């Protein structure tokens, strides 16, 4: 497949990075130093030029492209770039936008601006944050099979009833739930029944929405449902998180230092209490009882501020802290020093865009632990190695260890156990290590 990516920022580069092995990738950027560095670091053709100019696109041979991704930092540029590409090519166009304004227009019109798929970075990050808030103790949550299957990452807290149990015991205890992976300090394990779960382990579970929630509640017995949410910072991600929380009937609080921005946000968010203050002012945090909050979300402009704000929130007594991290390499660091969940908006965007490069039967993908593993949703056809056989037999034939996390048949959730028979037409959520993805996916 020939892929053209306009804009080699963090999102553009990470998409290019994950595609350059299997696809012909052309990257266009206006910054010559970036173009030069990409030429050497990745196996891609990098062109310096303006993506909105037809001449540049022709140089990239847009006519032969199958997939066209506009991922610069500017919404309008991305939209115009896609529209321009459409005049000279039949490629599937993807535009990355920040504003939900364009996204709404695009959704309502069923595909405006010559854009075939529109991804809003901020909205995706906000959706991830609200999903995590909905599941106490979760570090990351993804949805599959139109919401009936949840994938969640947890860190097993001390004195959790699950600590010390084996995976088989945990699976038995929770119907409709499978432990798909255990992330130790020394790496990722695809567990078998005998694998022991210990305090501090990060585990990935896949299951029906109800049982994942029940699991989350059991895992951290001391945590109630999160009703009182404080959002620190007034970035677009913060606003969209607040909007999503408002939609769920919550009334979050939002702290923004700049009075003008605070006013603007207060006008946009009718159910949110917007406060104009410095979120690192301890006296203010005490006076407003921020410490009583169930969750604090740090969504300020920079990673450093987010770290500081979430640590301070933790210090004044907030149960859970979630921080937005712009640079992917810091997510682990954040979680190591005590932030309960670190969210990288670009991961979510890249995930969303990469799923379009997948095989037609694959409907959804989630990337686990910086691309060490992937979770795929696949519809089973006649050629699949899984079709018509019990899971234990089928997985033995596959070239690498996989975990079948969930099966949905005609919208019904089926708990996969060793003797479960997969039928043609089932939707299967599979956990695979990244290096084996291509080999496994072709067999399924």
């Amino acid at each position, binding site marked *: 497949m020939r892929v053209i990516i306009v804009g080699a920022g963090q999102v553009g580069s990470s998409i290019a990075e994950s595609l350059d092995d299997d696809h012909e990738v052309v990257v266009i950027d206006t910054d010559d130093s970036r173009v030069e560095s990409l030429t050497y670091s990745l196996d891609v053709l990098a062109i310096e030029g303006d993506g909105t100019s037809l001449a540049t696109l022709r140089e990239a041979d847009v006519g032969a492209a199958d997939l066209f991704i506009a991922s610069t930092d500017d919404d309008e540029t991305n939209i115009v770039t896609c529209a321009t590409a459409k005049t000279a090519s039949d490629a599937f166009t993807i535009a990355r936008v920040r504003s939900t304004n364009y996204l709404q227009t695009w959704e309502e019109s069923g595909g405006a601006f010559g854009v075939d798929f529109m991804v809003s970075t901020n909205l995706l990050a906000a959706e991830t944050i609200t999903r995590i808030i909905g599941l106490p103790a979760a570090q990351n949550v993804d949805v599959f099979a139109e919401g009936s299957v949840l994938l969640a990452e947890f860190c097993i807290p001390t004195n959790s009833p699950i600590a010390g149990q084996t995976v088989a015991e945990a699976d038995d205890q929770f119907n409709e739930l499978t432990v798909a992976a255990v992330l130790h300090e020394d790496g990722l394990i695809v567990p078998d029944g005998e694998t022991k779960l210990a305090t501090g382990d990060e585990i990935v579970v896949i299951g029906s929405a109800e049982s994942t929630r029940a699991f989350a509640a059991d895992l951290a017995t001391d945590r109630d449902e999160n009703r009182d949410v404080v959002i620190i910072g007034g970035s677009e991600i913060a606003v969209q998180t607040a909007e999503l929380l408002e939609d769920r009937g919550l009334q979050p609080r939002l702290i923004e230092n700049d009075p003008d921005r*605070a006013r603007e*946000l*207060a*006008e946009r968010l009718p159910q949110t209490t917007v*406060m*104009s*203050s410095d979120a690192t002012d301890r006296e203010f945090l005490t006076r*407003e009882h921020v410490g009583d909050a169930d969750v604090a979300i740090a969504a300020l402009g920079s990673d450093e501020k987010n770290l500081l704000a979430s640590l301070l929130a933790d210090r004044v007594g907030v149960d859970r802290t979630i921080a937005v991290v712009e640079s992917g390499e810091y997510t682990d660091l954040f979680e190591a020093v005590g932030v309960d969940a670190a969210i990288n908006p670009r991961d979510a965007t890249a995930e969303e865009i990469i799923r379009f490069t997948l095989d037609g039967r694959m409907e959804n993908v989630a990337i686990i632990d910086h691309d060490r593993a992937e979770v795929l949703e696949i519809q089973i056809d006649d050629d699949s190695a899984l079709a018509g056989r019990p899971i234990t037999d089928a997985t033995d034939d596959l070239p690498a260890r996989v975990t079948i996390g969930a099966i949905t048949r005609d919208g019904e959730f089926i708990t996969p156990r060793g003797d479960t028979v997969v039928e043609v037409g089932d939707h299967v959520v599979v956990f695979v290590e990244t290096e084996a993805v291509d080999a496994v996916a072709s067999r399924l």
Partner: protein
Amino acid sequence: MASKWSSSRLRVDWRTSIGLVGTVVKYLSATLLVPLAVALFYGRDVLTFAIAFLITVIVGLGLERVEPDPDLGTREGFLMVALTWLVVALVGTVPYLLAGMGTGSTLAHPINALFESMSGFTTTGATMMGEISFTQHSHALLLWRQLTQWLGGMGIVVLAVAILPELSVGGAQLMDAEAPGPGIEKLTPRIAETARVLWLVYLGFTVLEMVLLYGLHLGGLAPNMELYNAVSHALTTLPTGGFSPEARSIEAFSAAVQWLIIPFMIAAGANFALFWHALTGNPEKLTQDTEFRSYVGIIGVLTAVIAGLLFTGAGIETVTDAVPPIIGQVEDALRHALFNVVSIITTTGFANMDFTTWSAPAKTILLFAMFIGGSAGSTGSAVKIIRWVVIVKSLRRELFTTVHPEAVSPVRLAGRVIDERAIRGIYAFTLLYVALFAFASLLIVIDSWRVGYTISTLEATSAIASTLGNVGPGFGAVGPMNNYLDFPATSKLLMTFLMWIGRLEILPVLVLLTPSYWRT
């Protein structure tokens, strides 16, 4: 030389304003042809209206000559609106003066005539007529009195904007200065079209009420609601005016008539733009409107309280023979409570019984209701529901920010944020309104004391609240079945002034009194 001096000092092209006032008056003279026709029919006061028509045409043409080529700006707009209402009220006195000459009518006195005319055009409904009867006044004159209210209701300037092409530019600002409520809503891209739509809705409601009232008469449910009365009362319901050719106001008519007039008063006190939306296929705009809901809610609550008071007898001080018994009668208690509450809140001023006979609690509720007023964009006056809603919301915000000083919370109306400047404007207006009320009440009390006219505080304050809010009746001496004749002339002039600035919502007139308006 003199004109050069004035043009170098004054920054307002007053000639333009006067010229345009002349144009409005010129066209307005046509409305005098209606009472003239009635005069011809009944054979009384024909000469009065023929002369009045001529005088009005001459005044209009004369004023128009002051500036044959008007160039309207913002400042000229304020002056024009204020002057229009003053000149129209002055011209409107002519029929009263001419008809009253030599008949012993109280309106023969120029100050009384001016009060009556201003009360008419501003849709107040306070009267200087000592005796309201067809033996004292002709059918034509009493119809003219009703007609002044109908013309003033939706607004003379709005009517002018709808008709006169020279007012299309700057018309929005003119309407803004005249129309009740903060700001106007443009329903159509062209302001003249918006003005026409509003007048059309207004006309439609008026005709509907006429037909229904007369229908009741033909159906035998309203023996004395003849065609003349049906027309007369429709003409003063929709503008929330309150004049009636019957001395006992609506008390003179059957319960069916009273029930029928109530919804029309309610409609008159609602935003006419909402009816336009409802008629063009958006009825939810009416039912979901915050102001309309508050308006209906306030009417409901006050009616329930007063109906309870009347039903138990706690709301009645002296039982009158003028109306059938109310105490213990559900329909009577409810009808009298609803009718008078609606009449006062919408600033109409009709009465279906003399509420001066009510007890102090019931009367005080009515006094406070005079400050509520109709909706923005209605024909009602006083403070207006929308302003109270905003004030209540912003006070609630103040309480919240006292506890949370860093909280930023905009005031919202049906989800839409209200600009802080608009809120300040609303506070300023309301404060000014209340301050003017207090100051004018004091002046009236002093003035009455000066001439030895005894008046209670309730009577004095109700007279001021009633004239400033363009309601009409007050309590006691100025009650719904009485008149304002006994006040000294200076008080009458003050109240005439209050009706004038009350109709224009104070600021467009007060701005004329500031030096910076006239210079720089």
